C-alpha cells in the first residue's frame, strides 16, 4: 500500500467512505469540498492509495482560528504575547474502517503536524487544537496533545499541542525504531 496525502479534489470518491461514525462520514460526503473550495473555512486532506488514487481511505480537515487576548484570565496574560493567540484547528480526522490498523492515522496526523509547522513558519501560529472524542484522547496524547481542563463529561475533549514542541520534535535527529 503506497499512501499519498493530498488536498481533497472535486472528483474524489467519497460516497463509500465509512469510518463507523456518521457525522464524520457525512462531513466528508456533503461538506468537505464545499467548505474547502467555496466558502474556504477549512481544508480537507485525503489519504489515497496509488492503486486507486481517487478513493479516499482517510481524511483530516484543518482550519485556522484565534483566541482574543482579552478572553484569557488576567493572571496568564503577562506570559502571552500582546496579540490574539493564533492557532490551527484539527477539525476532523477519520480513517475508513476497512483500512484501519495500517498506519493511516499516524500518516495523517504526521502530515497535519508538518502542515502546522509550515503554517507557523510562514504566517505564525502558536499551537494546534483538536476536539477529540473522549475514547480517542489517548491516541492524541501519544503525539503529545495535552487535554484542556473544562470539557463537559459527555462532550469532546479539547486537546492542545504547542508548536514549539512540534518544532523541537522536527529538529531531533532520532534513531527511534518505527514502532515503539
Amino acid at each position, binding site marked *: 500500500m503506497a499512501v499519498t496525502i493530498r488536498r481533497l479534489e472535486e472528483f474524489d470518491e467519497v460516497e463509500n467512505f465509512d469510518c463507523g461514525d456518521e457525522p464524520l462520514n457525512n*462531513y466528508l460526503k456533503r461538506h468537505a469540498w464545499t467548505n474547502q473550495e467555496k466558502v474556504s473555512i477549512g481544508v480537507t486532506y485525503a489519504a489515497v492509495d496509488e492503486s486507486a488514487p481517487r478513493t479516499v481511505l482517510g481524511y483530516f480537515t484543518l482550519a485556522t482560528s484565534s483566541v482574543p487576548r482579552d478572553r484569557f484570565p488576567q493572571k496568564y496574560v503577562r506570559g502571552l504575547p500582546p496579540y490574539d493567540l493564533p492557532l490551527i484547528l484539527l477539525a476532523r480526522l477519520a480513517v475508513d474502517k476497512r483500512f484501519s490498523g495500517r498506519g493511516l492515522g499516524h500518516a495523517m496526523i504526521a502530515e497535519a503536524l508538518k502542515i502546522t509547522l509550515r503554517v507557523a513558519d510562514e504566517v505564525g501560529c502558536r499551537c494546534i487544537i483538536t476536539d477529540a472524542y473522549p475514547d480517542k484522547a489517548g491516541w492524541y496524547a501519544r*503525539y503529545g496533545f495535552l487535554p484542556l481542563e473544562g470539557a463537559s463529561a459527555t462532550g469532546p475533549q479539547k486537546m492542545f499541542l504547542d508548536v514549539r514542541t512540534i518544532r523541537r520534535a522536527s529538529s531531533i535527529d532520532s534513531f527511534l525504531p518505527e514502532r515503539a
Partner: protein
Amino acid sequence: MPRAVKEKSKKAATLPAKTPTPRKTKFQADLAPSEDSMVRVLKAELQMTSNTDFLSDALALFRWAVSERKRGHRIVSESSTGERKILLFPRLERVAPEVTLPHVDVQWTDKELESLAELASGQPAEPTNALIRAMRK
C-alpha cells in the same frame, strides 16, 4: 369655498386616523420557457389560478424547508414500500448546522481558556517518541 367641500373637510377632521395598510411588493421574475411551463403545470395540478397564490404557497413550503434544515432536520420522502430518499438541495445545505462545524470560531468554556492560557504561557512540553517519529522527514 363651496359648501360641499367645506362639509367634506369637516367630516374628515372628525374621523379617526386610519392605520396605513402595508404596501404589497410586486414580484416579477424572468422565467425560461421550461420553467414557465413547469409553473403552469404545477398550477393546474394544484388547481391554482393566480400567480400570487402559487408564489405564496411555494414561499411557505420553502420557508418550512429552510427552518427544518436550520434545525439540523433532514427532509425525507418515503415511498409506500418504505424506500427513503433524502433531499439534498445545495442552497438548503448552506443553512444546515453541520456546515458551521469546522468554522474558525471555536467555542471555549472559561475553564478551557484558562487551561489553554496556562499551557500556552508556560514552557513547551518535551516531544513524545510518537511525535518525533511523526516529524521525521
